[in-house]
């Protein structure tokens, strides 16, 4: 399978991708490592290569930066909550849609489309949806708790603002979990299901003891993929809540963005980025090691 490739193929397979990666990404990555050790004020009129080296100052500052720690913790909480809920909902939905029934194709099309919308549009949708005079307050909640509903200002209280973010993400990404679980479950050989049936198993038993265990590796992949994406959350925080009220819904990406763009503190942003990168790479390595060790 891996014989020596001929020159032309080798060139084609290596050159473009390497040029692209090195030029666009790898050089900046290296630059970032240097930047993190600087004390640079871009507004000061001098370029970064003229800035004094500040040693580990930026990193030490990061560890006592309450806002940074809070953003990190908040993002982790967000990720876990969102992935958990999406997995459960996706599983329930996959179970419900497994058999044949009328209108299934239409239902599938509807279920999938939130995935196609850009995050900003989703943020926009829920920004409009949760407005004070929007349907959530005026129509739905009014029916449940009466007039008190109009007093809920979704974006003005830390808890409710966070909830709107959760709901937006869950709304958009549950179909993703559903798709993966549904494909996996459908792919389980029909014979195995029939074998279980003739042995007397009910549909529920088949679901829990045959289908689910067989897609365990798939579930793991789906969870990891979704978790990595959820950790990046920026768009909905930026557009819907702006990190507010105050900084109570400021996610990690949003904070780093602010540090770099609004506070112009490039080297600190670089340091923060490096810290997160190291943590993530470590986590990923541990995970890879873990999943391969189990073989």
């Amino acid at each position: 399978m891996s014989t020596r490739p001929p020159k032309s193929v080798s060139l084609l397979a290596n050159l473009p991708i390497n040029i692209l990666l090195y030029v666009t990404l790898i050089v900046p990555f290296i630059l970032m490592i240097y930047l993190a050790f600087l004390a640079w004020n871009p507004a000061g009129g001098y370029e970064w290569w003229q800035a004094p080296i500040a040693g580990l100052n930026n990193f030490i500052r990061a560890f006592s930066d309450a806002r940074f720690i809070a953003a990190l913790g908040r993002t982790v909480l967000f990720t876990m909550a969102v992935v958990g809920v999406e997995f459960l909902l996706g599983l329930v939905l996959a179970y419900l849609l497994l058999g044949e029934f009328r209108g299934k194709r239409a239902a599938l099309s509807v279920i999938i489309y939130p995935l196609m919308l850009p995050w900003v549009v989703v943020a926009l949708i829920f920004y409009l949806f949760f407005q004070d005079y929007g349907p959530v307050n005026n129509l739905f909640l009014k029916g449940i708790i009466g007039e008190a509903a109009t007093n809920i200002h979704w974006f003005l209280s830390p808890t409710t603002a966070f909830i709107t973010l959760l709901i937006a993400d869950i709304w958009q990404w549950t179909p993703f979990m559903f798709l993966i679980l549904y494909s996996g479950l459908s792919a389980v050989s029909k014979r195995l299901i029939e074998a279980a049936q003739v042995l007397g198993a009910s549909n529920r038993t088949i679901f829990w003891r045959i289908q689910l265990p067989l897609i365990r590796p798939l579930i793991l992949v789906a969870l990891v993929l979704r978790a990595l994406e959820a950790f990046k959350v920026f768009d909905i925080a930026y557009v819907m809540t702006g990190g507010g009220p105050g900084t109570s819904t400021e996610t990690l990406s949003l904070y780093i963005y602010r540090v770099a763009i609004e506070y112009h503190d490039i080297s600190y942003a670089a340091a923060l980025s490096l810290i997160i990168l190291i943590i993530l790479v470590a986590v990923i390595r541990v995970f890879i090691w873990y999943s391969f060790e189990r073989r």
Partner: protein
Amino acid sequence: MMVEVKLEVENLTKRFGDLVAVNNVSFEVRESEFFSLLGPSGCGKTTTLRCIAGLEMPDEGKIIIKGRDVTTLPPQQRGISLVFQEFAVFPHMTVYENLAFGLRVRKFSRDEIRKKVLAIAESLHLTDQLEVKAGRLGLSEQQRIALGRSIAVEPEILLLDEPLTLVDAKIKESMRRELRRLQKELNITILYVTHDQLEAMMMSDRIAVMNAGRLLQVGAPMEIYENPQNVFVARFIGSPTINILCAKLERENGMLKLIINDVKLDVSGKFSKEVGEKYVGRSVLLGIRPEDLLILKEKESKYDVKCKVDMIELLGNRMEVHMRLGKELVRALTLIRFDIREGDEIFLRLYPEKIYIFDKETEERIV
């Protein structure tokens, strides 16, 4: 002795679009019987089996198991068990868990399950592999696991869908004997689907031959072999295949004669008066098995006809001789000691008792 009927299939019909896969099939399987559904690929035997199991819903007809009409019941409630051609063992479970699956579903206690599983593992020689994940094992083990877990639930009737098709040729022989032994030992009623007539003949108490969705004949192996009801059954059973020749029935000097090409054969004794009258002057099909033909160097009786040897095939300790009777090709089996060569002219004795006569149109057996 009153024999109990385990399974009754009545007028079973199943269509897939325009195709009638199972066409008005009826038969019954008795208690402790090894019953085979035999037929070529696509004849509807697997579909019949799946209808009995509850994996397909018949369009017409009834399935009755031990007196209960189960036609509308799902597979879980029929009291059957099925061993698939592909085995379909649960790859993520150990052998033990596979064998125990049906019992766990039926809510047996852990101790009872343990006892039963160990017993079955013992008789199927799986005891050493109980803790191994079933997905890792080879075909023959998987087949035994599939068999074991089906037996464990003690079904009223055990269904098997061509279980030996995927098994190595060398192991097939021993597995067949194992299966038969197990069946007798545990007194299980078995409905066995296969396309291999040798297999069916060897293992079954009774065989049902199917073709193109129809049930052609039911009977004990010997019965079917010696008394095929139509050309298809005659051809399907027996190896090498029966010779089928075209012949015309004539009356000559008050005697009935079969005319095959230019050869005349006196068959007066075979036909009853009415049947003889009916078929005089018409063409019929004559069937005779290769093993029932006698090869002679010279004509010795009125039943001997002249043939020319076309080709000789050596099969172990026998020879299969292909020869020409007029224009027709006939095959005969004989011991190797016979000294003949290609191109020789020899005589073939057609024992009238061994001849089958079929109607040319309906292919049904007349005599």
